């Protein structure tokens, strides 16, 4: 990957990530998040993780974020008018994250950061290689994930379903 591409993507993803937490309108936050996700997806692809990069777009941007959008609509969220969180909290949050990032960087940017290279096969990052791993080494994780998804579906339905006799506080907001 060329340096300019990395810098480009890094800037986009950082700026849009900041956008997520400073925008007042939830929809704008969401779009910023989508942009981050897309930038990262491209970065993934550039890092030879083609399949995962596309999955990132399909699953994250294409499905999860749309779900978020739906909920924003469903709840009819408007831009926050009042202050978003107390000043003290903001201050604390900024300090805390600055500390976190400083610590992480100080650790991660050390020159002697050693990572051993295992060896890249020709099929690195392809669907074939991914599936091969998925259905051998990670079989149990894969199966467990299916159950996780089932549980999540059941759970989401159980919660979002109205309780018998419960009425929605607002009527008829959906087609």
């Amino acid at each position, binding site marked *: *990957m060329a*340096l300019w591409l990395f810098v480009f993507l*890094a800037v986009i*993803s*950082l700026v849009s*990530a900041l956008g*997520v*937490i400073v925008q007042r309108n*939830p929809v704008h936050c969401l779009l910023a*998040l989508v942009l*981050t996700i897309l930038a*990262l997806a491209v970065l*993934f692809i550039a*890092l*030879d*993780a083609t399949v*995962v990069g596309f*999955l*990132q777009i399909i*699953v*994250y941007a294409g*499905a999860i974020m749309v*779900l*978020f959008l*739906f*909920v924003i609509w*469903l*709840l009819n*969220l408007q831009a*926050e008018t009042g202050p*978003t*969180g107390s000043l003290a909290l903001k201050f604390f*949050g900024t300090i805390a*994250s600055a500390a*976190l*990032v400083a610590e*992480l*960087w100080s650790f*991660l940017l050390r020159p002697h*950061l050693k*990572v051993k290279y*295992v*060896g890249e096969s020709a099929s*690195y990052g392809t669907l074939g290689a*991914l599936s091969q*791993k*998925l259905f051998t080494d*990670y079989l149990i994780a894969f199966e467990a*994930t299916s159950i*996780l*998804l089932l549980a*999540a*579906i059941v*759970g*989401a339905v159980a*919660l*979002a379903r109205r309780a018998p006799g*419960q009425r*929605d*506080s607002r009527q008829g907001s959906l087609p």
Partner: protein
Amino acid sequence: MSSIPLTWLLGLSAAIFAIGVAGMIMRRNILVMFMSIELMLNAVNLAFIALAHRLGSMDGQVIVFFVMTVAAAEAAVGLGIIISIFRNRETVQADDLTLLRW
């Protein structure tokens, strides 16, 4: 690719992670808090991919696959919960949730 050092990638990932943490701490809108969590997960994904690339092992990518799946499941449940709380309380501001002492 070898032109980009691993540390830069991890640094980027750390920065995004920290932004997510900051959002989680600073924002009071539950939905935006949730989005911040998604940011964190994305940062994690980036770290996995970068490390996997450097290690030359596919494991990291497989894990990212799982993380995405889990994120999807989490989103479904989380949004379900948000809807249910909105139905009860008509708010998604964390500060308004004071029935239980926070």
